[in-house]
């Protein structure tokens, strides 16, 4: 471990302090400002603000819309996370097997994750277009009529969940694939020597070794899926009749469409408070100065 002695050390120290300061300014300032905005009433982003204390919070929390949006967010997160994790583990186990053409399939399996959300939203809207969408036409040919994908509240949720699972499952797949490759081969050998069949080796070696990764993934995915604004906004705008309006969409509507900046900031801050709980759980289980530690 070094201390700052020479000139180049001091130069680096200066660069370090400047970098930390810039980063803090970039991140801390907006967050503090968001919390500050949530205590004021203002008509727009540039108008004069009036301090109203906890007024925005009281107003927001008393609305049934807030709790409804909260529930919708939880539903969306739980559905997408369960599906992503189940499919992701399945894909990882599959891609861990040797088979002809594996590199190609591995590459293809990652592609959806690279796509910008807007591309995913546009591609799915085209597949589901009411008159020309391929899936709509197939559904009709199968005798299911023309499904009202985006007009039916339940169907709209199903559609955003499927699109989300499609693009974000590769993250889970790759993470578990990496975890599978860190399992020491000697464990399988030992199990084999002990007479464990392939099912037992899978159940008693593979699965327990994947549990730590499962915890990390579920926490990270929960944090991100609960935050997700773009996929829902781009596909349904929170509709039909706010059937897919979760907290991020609600915060956006308030701040940018109803010009209720304080209310929007209050909703965003509240969802941040919920997330902070999850993040604290993450830090509790994965402390930064834990096993790996800072040297």
């Amino acid at each position, binding site marked *: 471990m070094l201390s700052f002695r020479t000139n180049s050390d001091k130069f680096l120290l200066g660069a370090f302090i400047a970098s930390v300061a810039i980063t803090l300014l970039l991140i801390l300032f907006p967050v503090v400002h968001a919390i500050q905005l949530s205590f004021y009433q203002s008509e727009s982003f540039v108008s004069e603000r009036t301090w109203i204390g906890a007024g925005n919070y009281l107003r927001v929390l008393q609305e049934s819309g807030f709790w409804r949006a909260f529930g919708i967010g939880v539903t969306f997160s739980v559905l997408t996370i369960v599906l992503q994790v189940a499919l992701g583990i399945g894909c990882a186990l599959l*891609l861990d097997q040797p088979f002809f053409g594996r590199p190609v399939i591995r590459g293809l399996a990652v592609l959806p994750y690279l796509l910008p959300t807007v591309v995913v939203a546009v591609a799915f809207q085209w597949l589901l277009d009411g008159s020309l969408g391929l899936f709509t036409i197939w559904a009709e040919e199968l005798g299911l009529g023309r499904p009202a994908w985006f007009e039916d509240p339940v169907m709209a949720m199903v559609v955003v969940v499927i699109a989300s699972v499609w693009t974000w499952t590769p993250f889970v797949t790759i993470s578990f694939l990496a975890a599978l490759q860190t399992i020491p081969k000697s464990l399988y050998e030992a199990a084999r020597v002990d007479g464990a069949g392939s099912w037992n080796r899978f159940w008693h070696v593979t699965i327990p070794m994947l549990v730590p990764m499962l915890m990390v993934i579920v926490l990270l995915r929960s944090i991100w899926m609960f935050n997700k604004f773009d996929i829902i906004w781009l596909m349904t705008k929170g509709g039909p009749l706010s059937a897919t309006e979760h907290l991020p969409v609600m915060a956006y509507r308030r701040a940018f469409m109803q010009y209720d900046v304080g209310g929007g900031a209050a909703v965003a801050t509240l969802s941040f408070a919920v997330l902070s709980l999850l993040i604290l759980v993450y830090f509790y289980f994965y402390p930064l100065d834990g096993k790996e530690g800072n040297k």
Partner: protein
Amino acid sequence: MNKRSLPLRALTLVAAALLGLWSFFPIYWMIVSSLRPERDLFAPPTLIPKTIDWKFSAYRNLLELTDYPVQFANSVVVALAVVVITLLISVVIAYVVTRYKVPGKTAIIGSMLYAYMFPPLLLAIPLLSIFARMGFSDHLIAVVFAHCTLSIPLGVWMLWGFFKAMPFDLEEAAMVDGCSRAGAFFRMVLPLSAPGIITVAIFSFLLSWTDYVFSFVLVNSDANKTLPVGLASVLGTFDARWGELMAGATLIALPLFIMFMFLSRYFIKGLAAGALKG
């Protein structure tokens, strides 16, 4: 492992084919739709296009009649600026934190990880308020700064893991051999950490290139939009111009696919590090 039975191997192949189909089909359909002549778009679709529009009308319309070329340039400029700023700042922070006695280093790294989990709107609402008061509303600079609020924490977090794992002895050996501290850094540390730095560069590029939320909130005029926001507004204005929309979507995705072809191992490494926002 190679002695698996034939049915099991067949089953694996079928499952792999299904996975490939599931992952690639919407992308395939997007590209095919962008290449079909307009009259075919209104006919019942066929999985394999009957005719391909070799004049690329959808692409031409998009590039000639809309602000798409400007928006492409905006996206490139913003993403490159984000990559450069992110690398400069995150290399310095991560390196100093892993190599020097710095008080509160765990707090610094912890707050980076914390920051990279923030809800985007929690940052977007105050950022618009701040930039609007500073006179930077509807300005690409605002978008660059906004993307840096995500990419710097990501970069520090990834490089921290990277520098931590890199043996300290190498630099010490170089310094014993007469290198200055800076010399050791530039001659030993930077080249050896190139894979980590490339991964951070790719992921900050990806983050900026694919971002919708921040650009959507911070920029209004068509000429200042980045590609994702530009495409979303085509969705609004060109009602049912699906050919152009699919062409636009393909144009955003294409650079990423090309990057992936050449740099896939860095993508996989970054993903496996659990390191991309999303």
